[in-house]
């Protein structure tokens, strides 16, 4: 465990209350939908009602004559203006050495529509109501084609083909690991356990729908886009450079308060480009606010895998090799990170917390007539964890081993770090056994049989399940990521501006959309520079104010951005020591900085941080001949490795025998997040992540109709979001080991809840039903699904 007792009341380890709360609590948040600009107009997209169709004539005449309508724009107008397609940010390479198939993705459809929701036209009017009325009368001629929404159907030889250049709907046939070693291990194995599963498609649904406002200022030839984005600099780069060809210095992208992201807002969307293009064309500000049901058919979705997995074991339950084959749905076009998620963020996590010596994973990325699929909280890692942790339970059941014993038998012990897995990654630190033991204790795993018996007397099935997991945060280093297909860097940036009074503004290349970074990062500054958090403001989300940064996703903000911030603070301290050394006539090496004071070591000669800050800007007693005035430093940090948070989650459920409804009755999480900056915020991140994972396990499912390609779960009426009454009180705590390569020892915590929970809950459900001979249940465990499973199960056998 780390000794995190804070010496500084607002420094690292303090559960201080959040600096950003007040504006949100009083209705003074500043979200994109709240923006008004002079002369602002309103845009509405016309979207395809068909999953797959040839696009005929688009008759815009009726729409153009609706009073107040200013423009009705189509793909042909985009083409005439030489607007580029929406780029993909990752280019993966197949096992045959060939690059993935990367068909053009026009911002408004050209020639064909490929999913229900594909945008075909954009109507701009003086009022939102006029734009909506006009959008309703845009006449689009569709020649409907057969469609395919399911990956299993999409790879069949007779499946409808979305893109001529991608026969068989195959974007990429990818692999990782040593196939020969795995085959050899399977050939000699005493036992092989197999599992087929589906990882259900999800819609991220941040509570704030996406929105964009764009404006063009001809006086300065400047374009501004306000957008609901997790990474405004990347939007500026992708949209400015590839789509609209606006020079970077002439384009400002602002992501103000953003109401949740979860990955959904970490892509460059066609709508951002169309709104900006329309604003420049019209010379008027244009606003578009996505409606929720529109978001269901235009926000990138998550997950959607079909997987076959096999584990080879020896007679003692030792894992010898793991073989995984996955079909991953890409949807109708490649979204920004789409092909990276089920490949580079999936296969490397298949070792989990186990010593499995040989692993091979093949993934076919498949186009279908569905909304593009991309990262959603966890992004590849929940899918890998679900495969592995479900399969481990199947192994235990088939060998007649205890589920904890088989994990313990195969787990990487704390003394084995750094640990090189057979799937690329090297874990730097961790203690999965410690996390598991603590979770077992809190959850009273040993006392479960009595609880099951008591439940049985009440006529309900009760089950307990565990998921032990590791994940990878802060994808890095850039050099390796670029070799794997990244088309950008994965560093992060921070700048610290110390004002003459010693107050601090820190400018971060990351974003914050619920994570509390205005507080967490201020605590790091407070810790490093010895100033109270009230004297620190964190600025982010505006490309005109902040140096280039990659934004917030993949639990990277603290581990990559926070390390950059720490390094920038170190530069401030070094410069401060130089100034202090000059003033106190000491050698720089003799000046130490502790608790906000520069001191000549071993003496009582000191200068306060405020005095040095003032001297930097009023350089009367200042070494001007060797040092520039001012006190402002910047750091870009490119990590040497991922970070590897992990933990153990235990869920307990009860199942109604008559209705199949599953009630989650207990949830325990013990996680290793490395150094904790703010325990209150970490617990909040875990709570939220766990419930999103529980949502996947119990109720969320972005179901498509196989025949029509319609998204049938297309609103909050049909797509079941977790509500307050679905959850018991969770117990979360941390069991931390220090990350060896981030300056502060942090590992990140944004996604772990979503990664650990689906398998924990599903393992509990299967455990509850094990007496019926049930060995696997796909997610979500809706009452309907569980009831059917129970009806078709064998007669009750001996309980576990």
């Amino acid at each position, binding site marked *: 465990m780390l000794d995190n007792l804070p010496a500084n009341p607002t420094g690292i380890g303090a559960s201080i209350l959040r600096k950003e709360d007040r504006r949100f609590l009083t209705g003074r948040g500043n979200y994109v939908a709240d923006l008004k600009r002079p002369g602002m107009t309103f845009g509405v997209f016309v979207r395809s009602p068909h999953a797959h169709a040839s696009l005929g004539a688009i008759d815009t005449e009726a729409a153009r004559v609706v009073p107040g309508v200013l423009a009705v724009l189509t793909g042909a107008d985009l083409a005439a203006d030489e607007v580029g397609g929406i780029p993909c940010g990752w280019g993966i390479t197949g096992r045959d050495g060939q690059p993935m198939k990367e068909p053009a993705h026009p911002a408004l459809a050209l020639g064909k529509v490929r999913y229900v929701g594909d945008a075909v036209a954009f109507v701009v009017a003086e009022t939102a109501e006029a734009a909506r009325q006009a959008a309703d009368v845009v006449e689009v001629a569709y020649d409907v084609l057969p469609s395919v929404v399911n990956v299993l159907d999409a790879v069949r030889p007779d499946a409808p083909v979305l893109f001529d250049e991608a026969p068989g709907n195959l974007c990429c046939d990818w692999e990782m690991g040593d196939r020969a070693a795995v085959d050899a291990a399977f050939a000699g194995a005493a036992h092989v356990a197999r599992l087929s599963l589906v990882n259900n498609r999800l819609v991220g649904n941040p509570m704030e*729908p996406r929105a964009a406002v764009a404006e063009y200022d001809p006086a300065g030839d400047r374009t501004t886009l306000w957008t609901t984005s997790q990474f405004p600099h990347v939007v500026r780069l992708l949209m400015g450079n590839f789509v609209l060809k606006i020079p970077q210095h002439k384009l400002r992208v602002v992501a103000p308060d953003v109401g949740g992201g979860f990955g959904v807002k970490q892509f460059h969307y066609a709508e951002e480009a169309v709104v900006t293009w329309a604003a420049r064309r019209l010379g008027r500000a244009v606003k578009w606010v996505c409606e929720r049901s529109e978001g269901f058919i235009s926000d990138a979705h998550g997950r959607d895998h079909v997987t076959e997995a096999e584990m080879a074991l020896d007679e003692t339950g030792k894992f010898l090799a793991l073989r995984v084959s996955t079909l991953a749905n890409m949807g109708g076009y490649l979204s920004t990170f789409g092909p990276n998620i089920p490949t580079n963020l999936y296969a490397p996590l298949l070792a989990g917390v186990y010593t499995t010596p040989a692993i091979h994973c093949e993934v076919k990325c498949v186009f279908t007539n569905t909304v593009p699929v991309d990262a959603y909280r966890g992004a590849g890692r929940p899918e890998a964890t679900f495969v592995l942790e479900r399969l481990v339970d199947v192994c235990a059941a088939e060998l007649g081993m205890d589920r904890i014993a088989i994990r313990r038998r195969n787990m990487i012990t704390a003394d084995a770090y750094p640990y090189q897995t057979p799937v690329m990654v090297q874990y730097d630190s961790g203690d999965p056994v410690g996390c598991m033991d603590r979770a077992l204790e809190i959850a009273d795993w040993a006392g479960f049989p009595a609880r099951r018996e008591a439940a049985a007397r009440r006529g309900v099935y009760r089950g307990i399940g565990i998921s032990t997991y590791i994940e990878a945060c802060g994808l890095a280093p850039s050099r390796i990521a670029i070799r794997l297909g990244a088309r950008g860097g994965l560093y992060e940036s921070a700048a610290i501006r110390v004002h003459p009074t010693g107050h601090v503004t820190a400018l971060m290349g990351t974003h914050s959309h619920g994570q509390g970074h205005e507080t967490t990062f201020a605590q790091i500054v407070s810790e490093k520079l010895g100033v109270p958090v009230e004297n620190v403001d964190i600025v982010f989300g505006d490309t005109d104010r902040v140096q280039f940064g990659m934004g917030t996703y993949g639990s990277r903000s603290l581990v990559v951005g926070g390390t950059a911030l720490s390094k920038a603070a170190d530069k401030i301290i070094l410069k401060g020591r130089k100034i202090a050394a000059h003033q106190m006539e000491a050698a720089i090496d003799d000046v130490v900085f502790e608790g906000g004071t520069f001191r000549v070591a071993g003496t009582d000669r000191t200068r306060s941080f405020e005095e040095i800050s003032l001297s930097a800007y009023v350089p009367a007693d200042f070494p001007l001949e060797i040092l520039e005035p001012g006190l402002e430093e910047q750091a870009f940090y490119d990590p040497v490795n991922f970070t590897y948070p992990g933990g153990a989650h235990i869920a307990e459920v009860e199942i109604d025998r008559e209705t199949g409804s599953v009630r989650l009755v207990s949830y325990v999480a013990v996680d290793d997040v490395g150094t904790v900056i703010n325990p209150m915020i970490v617990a909040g991140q875990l709570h939220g992540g766990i419930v999103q994972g529980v949502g996947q396990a119990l109720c969320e499912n972005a179901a498509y109709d196989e025949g029509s390609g319609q998204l049938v779960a297309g609103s909050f009426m049909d797509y079941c979001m977790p509500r307050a009454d679905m959850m018991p009180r969770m117990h979360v705590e941390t069991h931390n080991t220090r990350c060896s390569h981030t300056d502060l020892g942090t590992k990140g915590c944004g996604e772990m809840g979503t990664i650990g929970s689906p398998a924990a809950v599903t393992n509990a459900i299967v455990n509850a039903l094990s007496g019926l001979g049930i060995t696997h249940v796909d997610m979500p465990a809706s009452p309907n699904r569980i009831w059917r499973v129970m009806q078709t199960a064998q007669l009750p056998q001996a309980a576990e």
Partner: protein
Amino acid sequence: MDLMLEVNGQTVRASAPDETLLVDFLRDTLGLTGTHVGCDTSQCGACVVHVDGRAVKSCTMLAASADGSRVLTIEGLAATTGGNDLHPMQRAFHENHGLQCGFCTPGMVMTAVAYAADHAAPDEADVRAALEGNLCRCTGYQNIVASVIAGAAAMHAGKEA
């Protein structure tokens, strides 16, 4: 039509098309953008305001229906306790980390205030049931539930004595 109503203690006279929803009237006509729109099916509760003291999803009500009513939004909540500081429920959300991205927060707080007015000491299950009309995607609800319990206690603290 022409409307006259009280919003956050101020008399408002304004004109709006008949079909204007109360939420759009508050946001677009009055510029009170603290009330949010998170869905289009009256499921999420981000738009909850008080109309004549009752919690209402302002996306389900026409502005015209609020004619002559007293409307309270998140912007006016703190002032109802007499000071410029936070309302006890707002403070409870702050102290219990009951918000993350802040988007659902105004609706959550307004729902919680109306509920707590009649429930001084609710238990956890009561609060979870009372929040069934409000979605949050960030917090997993745990700290919201704690906030509502603490806020209810704080709202009634003065009344006991």
